[in-house]
């Protein structure tokens, strides 16, 4: 009857403990199952509906499991050719081919560095790669990407531009995308990465991924991205905001050669077209640049866009040899 004996017989399970055990089993079944069926869901619903105690115990266990999700930050890092990537001339806006050749040359002279293969797309081009493991990478316009040629081939460097990744999960060999000093590690996922000079944008469509962003003082900021998350990493910050996956899908319309504008300002639309075309759109007046437009255009069909600007928005269009100037 004393306290010590009752503690020692902790195995003599109480009713509450049995319910907690069952709740833990349900949470694990639900949260770690690859195929959670309708039948499974019905069994869970029935158990939860049986007693309030069941629901509460389930909430508690689910909250505990949820708090372990962030443990993935602790995943051990694979060996990194860090010094080499830091030598990458990120800011130098050299011609892509030259930069790529220089990097391959550098990789070749270091016997420890895995060999890499360079893929590049010209302005207005797209390119699709299928890796040995079945993962797909789609390069958007004006993009340079290197793929490690080691036995797993699950590391790539996005040196410039934008790429969409649909990655086959392999727990033993995480897929890593390095952009400058920022690193994205997939946990089985679809996401898009854009290198935009001073910043890197990562939008996650499916699954989970981790981003590690070292700041100027070499302190690493990390975040786990869930579907709908958009991360922006700069030299001294990492921020994550939530949007609808539908919006990310809109931003990915380039995969089918389209630009989708939805309440987009003319300024942003012009910037978007300019990524795909050599003849640049210029909007002279800030007020004009602030007008908004809806619509879907082919990335290389600036003419259609100019048509709308001219005949629907009633703006002035001057078509020079090197640029198209839009004014009120």
């Amino acid at each position, binding site marked *: 009857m004393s306290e010590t004996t009752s503690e020692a017989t*902790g195995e003599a399970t109480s009713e*509450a403990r049995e319910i907690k055990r069952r709740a833990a089993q349900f949470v694990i079944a639900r949260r770690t199952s690859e195929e959670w069926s309708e039948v499974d869901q019905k069994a869970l619903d029935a158990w939860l509906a049986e007693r309030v105690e069941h629901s509460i115990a389930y909430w*508690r266990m689910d909250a*505990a*499991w949820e708090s372990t999700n962030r443990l993935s930050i602790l*995943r051990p890092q694979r060996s990194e050719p860090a010094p080499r990537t830091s030598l990458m001339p990120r800011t130098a806006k050299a011609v892509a081919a030259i930069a790529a050749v220089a990097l391959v040359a550098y990789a070749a002279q270091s016997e420890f560095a895995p060999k890499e293969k360079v893929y590049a797309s010209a302005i207005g081009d797209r390119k699709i790669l299928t890796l040995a493991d079945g993962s797909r990478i789609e390069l958007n316009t004006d993009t340079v990407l290197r793929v490690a040629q080691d036995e797993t081939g699950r590391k790539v460097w996005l040196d410039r531009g934008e790429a969409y990744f649909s990655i086959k999960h392999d727990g033993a060999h995480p897929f890593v995308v390095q952009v400058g000093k920022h690193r994205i590690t997939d946990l089985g996922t679809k996401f898009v990465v854009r290198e935009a000079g001073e910043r890197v944008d990562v939008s996650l469509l499916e699954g989970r991924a981790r981003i590690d962003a070292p700041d100027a003082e070499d302190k690493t900021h990390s975040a786990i991205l869930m579907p709908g998350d958009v991360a922006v990493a700069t030299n001294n910050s990492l921020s994550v905001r939530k949007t609808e996956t539908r919006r990310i899908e809109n931003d990915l319309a380039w995969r089918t050669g389209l630009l989708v504008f939805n309440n987009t300002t003319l300024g942003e639309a012009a910037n978007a077209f300019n990524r795909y075309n050599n003849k640049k759109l210029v909007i002279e007046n800030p007020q004009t640049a602030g007008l908004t437009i809806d619509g879907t255009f082919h990335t290389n069909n600036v003419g259609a866009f100019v048509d709308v600007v001219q005949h629907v928005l009633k703006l002035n269009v001057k078509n020079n040899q090197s640029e198209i100037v839009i004014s009120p």
Partner: protein
Amino acid sequence: MIDRGDNHREGAKRHFGAVMAAPGVQEWFVREVLPLEAALVQYLQHNWRNKADVEDILQDVYVKVCEAAAKERPQQTKSFVFTTARNTLIDRVRKEQVVPIEAVADLDALNMAADDPGPERAALARDELRRVQAALDRLPPRRRQAVYLRQVEGLSRREIATRMGIGEETVKEYLAEGLFDLAELLFSEPADMRRRR
């Protein structure tokens, strides 16, 4: 002190659907009540002689606060939860017709004049990763390994089974047991115990 608290006597007859259906009760419970669990367990252990009953009493307290919150969210969660705990103890004393010597006297010592968020909750947000990691480190080895492979390395159940050389059903068992332990360590164990280990 014992002459109050008839209000929870009909605990056996409850409307089961109400709590689950009420919107936001789960979020409220996880956000405001769960962080109080360690203090609540300590309070119950302090005021109830048979420690083996504490888990069941805690469960009763949770049911009562959630049922009340489904109807109307209490203004001050902390004092509401502890008042409910006291009433639950009083009910038990009456039912069992045994009066533990120090029965139900400690409530006022908890100093609940202000329902400040409490150090528990602030600490929970701040050091969550560190705490979860510390809790994981204290699991029995096989359970820890299973949870680690799943949540840190991101392996599927099948991959974990291969890695550990066991069946997938056993992986599920280890994960469920590991989760049970983690919940106890994260919610139930007093904060000073966590720090010491």
